[in-house]
């Protein structure tokens, strides 16, 4: 028995040591920033974003933070990592503790989760504004209309159209291009390709050699572009990338062959790197979607519904399902946008409240999300 207890003691000691090691690992966690954790205070603003390590989402969060600061409210950020089920679970955790006069603005991460996210928010009586993803068949006015205040996005068809028009012009109306598409199940991905096709129909001299899916990712786009350069050689005159990250990948592949700046590349979003590349000539154009504005407007509208500044039932369809304005950035106007990037305007709730739809580009047309 003494042998046994000795063994047990040893086990305990060993386990104690390793526990200490684990605790040593765990303690620095305190540094990572526990925010004072209580039930969400009255009037909190909640945003749901796809990832933190992204310039776009950092700026979106900045816009929402501006509004929170102007209201002296708390901003709660949840990250889905592109997983709708993760978003649902995390929202559930926040709503669990009760949330009075809270407001939610979120990307539901994919069309499939829109209805569930809206429903979850409605159950908690939290007004919600969705961005980017909405299935064609459901709208704020027909699905939980009391709490789904609005949906807002950027016009992907126009974005693709602007890009392809610029390519057509740069190639003098003659040439062959290839397109890199985003994650196929997301509206911006197929909208931007639809815009590309629309522009090409008006520019018969330019043909589409190939389309590949790059899943919005820089590295995938780089591999695809490298394969194209090997396959098509001088037949490839331009690359259409559905977002800036993939445009960066395409430029990196061109750089490997010293072709950057010689074969025009287009993108969309208006990220800092893309603006720099437009300035240096590595990229032809990008389309400026202002995430700071998007963050500010989307959470401000949700908050307005939460405190009664607007009544969803009295809003028109154009106010509940709209695009925000976007602009083409080329070499001629890039300095203006670089300046905007460096000194983004600070939005306040009071200022937006005067007209929440000041920067609207109109109602989302029927069929846009098909």
């Amino acid at each position: 028995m003494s042998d046994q207890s000795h063994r047990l003691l040893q086990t305990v000691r060993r386990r104690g040591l390793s526990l200490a090691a684990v605790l040593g690992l765990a303690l620095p966690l305190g540094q990572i920033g526990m925010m004072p954790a209580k039930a969400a205070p009255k009037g909190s603003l909640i945003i749901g974003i796809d990832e933190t390590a992204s310039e776009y989402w950092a700026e979106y969060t900045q816009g929402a933070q501006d509004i929170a600061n102007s209201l002296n409210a708390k901003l709660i950020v949840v990250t889905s990592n592109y997983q709708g089920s993760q978003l649902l679970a995390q929202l559930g955790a926040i709503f669990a503790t009760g949330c009075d006069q809270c407001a939610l603005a979120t990307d539901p991460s994919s069309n499939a989760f829109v209805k569930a996210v809206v429903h979850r928010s409605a159950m908690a009586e939290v007004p919600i504004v969705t961005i980017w993803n909405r299935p064609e068949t459901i709208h704020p006015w027909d699905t939980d209309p009391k709490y789904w205040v609005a949906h807002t996005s950027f016009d992907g068809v126009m974005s693709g159209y602007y890009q392809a028009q610029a390519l057509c012009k740069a190639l003098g109306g003659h040439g062959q291009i290839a397109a890199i598409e985003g994650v196929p199940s997301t509206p911006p991905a197929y909208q931007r390709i639809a815009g590309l096709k629309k522009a090409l129909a008006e520019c018969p001299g330019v043909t589409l050699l190939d389309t590949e899916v790059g899943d919005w990712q820089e590295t995938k786009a780089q591999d695809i572009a490298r394969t194209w350069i090997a396959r098509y050689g001088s037949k490839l005159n331009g690359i259409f990338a559905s977002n800036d990250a993939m445009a960066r990948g395409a430029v990196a592949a061109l750089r490997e062959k010293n072709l950057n700046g010689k074969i025009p590349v287009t993108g969309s979003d208006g990220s800092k790197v893309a603006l720099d590349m437009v300035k240096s000539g590595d990229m032809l154009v990008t389309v400026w979607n202002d995430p700071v504005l998007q963050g500010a407007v989307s959470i401000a509208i949700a908050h307005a519904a939460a405190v009664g500044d607007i009544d969803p039932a009295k809003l028109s369809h154009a106010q509940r399902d709209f695009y925000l304005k976007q602009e083409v950035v080329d070499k001629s106007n890039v300095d203006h946008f670089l300046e905007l990037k460096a000194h983004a305007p600070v939005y306040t709730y009071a200022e937006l409240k005067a007209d929440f739809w000041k920067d609207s580009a109109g109602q989302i047309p029927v069929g846009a999300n098909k």
Partner: protein
Amino acid sequence: MKLISATVAVRSAREPDGGVAQHLRRWLQSLGPLAVLIVLLLVFEIARHNFLTGGNLAAIAESAAVPVILTTGLSFVILLGAIDLSMEGVMAASSMTLSLLCANDVNGNHWGVWGIAAAIGVGLAFGLVNGVLNTILRMPSLIVTLGTWFIGLGIASILFPAQVPTVRDPWVLGIAAYHIAGLSLIVFVALLLLLLFHLLLHYTHLGRMIFAVGGAEATLVMTGLPVPLFKIAAFVISGLLAGIAGVLLSARLGDGNANIGDGLLFPAVSACVLGGTLLSGGRGGVLQSAIGAVVLEVLNNGLIQIGAGPYVRNIISGAVILLVVAASGLHLRRKLRVVK
């Protein structure tokens, strides 16, 4: 005495049933993946006549360079019979470290070569943690490396500044920009690492011990050899090479990216198995795994070339992996073999 039994363990691990016919068969078997590679190249050449051009082969070499480095590291862990799932997280952390320490457009750091060393060091540290958690704290490698995968992604997202950091360091950019005979330095780095770790695996004590651990760990433990050290070494090699891969990928993109390793893990594991490195450990090698990686790149490149859509590409590559692995193991089927 210890040495003798260790040698026995090594032998029993590598040659369970000797015989000339067996040797011949094993030799033929190791040629299998190479044959698959040649068949694929021929099929695509027939399907598209300009497949085997210098330009396209160079493109394949560029795409295969990083997967080859990753499978080389992974092979060491798989030879133990363990697994390392952390590479995507490690690459994210190393890419972010590199782009923030070398000259960039976000902060004033200018560490130059030391930045590269630090980024590789991050990979090494991850390997060390994986190895220690697996051997000293006795936790299964699958779950340990799953945890550190998340931690790597987390470190990258904490380090991420408000905007994508663009690398300006000429040393780092030079790795991707400098070309010899139409191939970037990345390809040569991959070849060098492959050769180096091939030699390490087959001509050093450590290499032999890693084979032995994979073949008969229990026996080896009884000989009193420092088995945990060998295992930690394998994890460190895997982490180190993932760190290097993160550096090379960032050099090629010219920026730091937290998603840089996305989608590289499962192809790397498949490549090891395709090449004939057994997941149960003890058999295989870095060269075989590298061939597996090249097979997958050829398949991917060829399917893009013949214009197969991205969805069909998933289906075909899954089927090819299954077919090749099934075919290469077919002759072993009749034995009383344990496959998990």
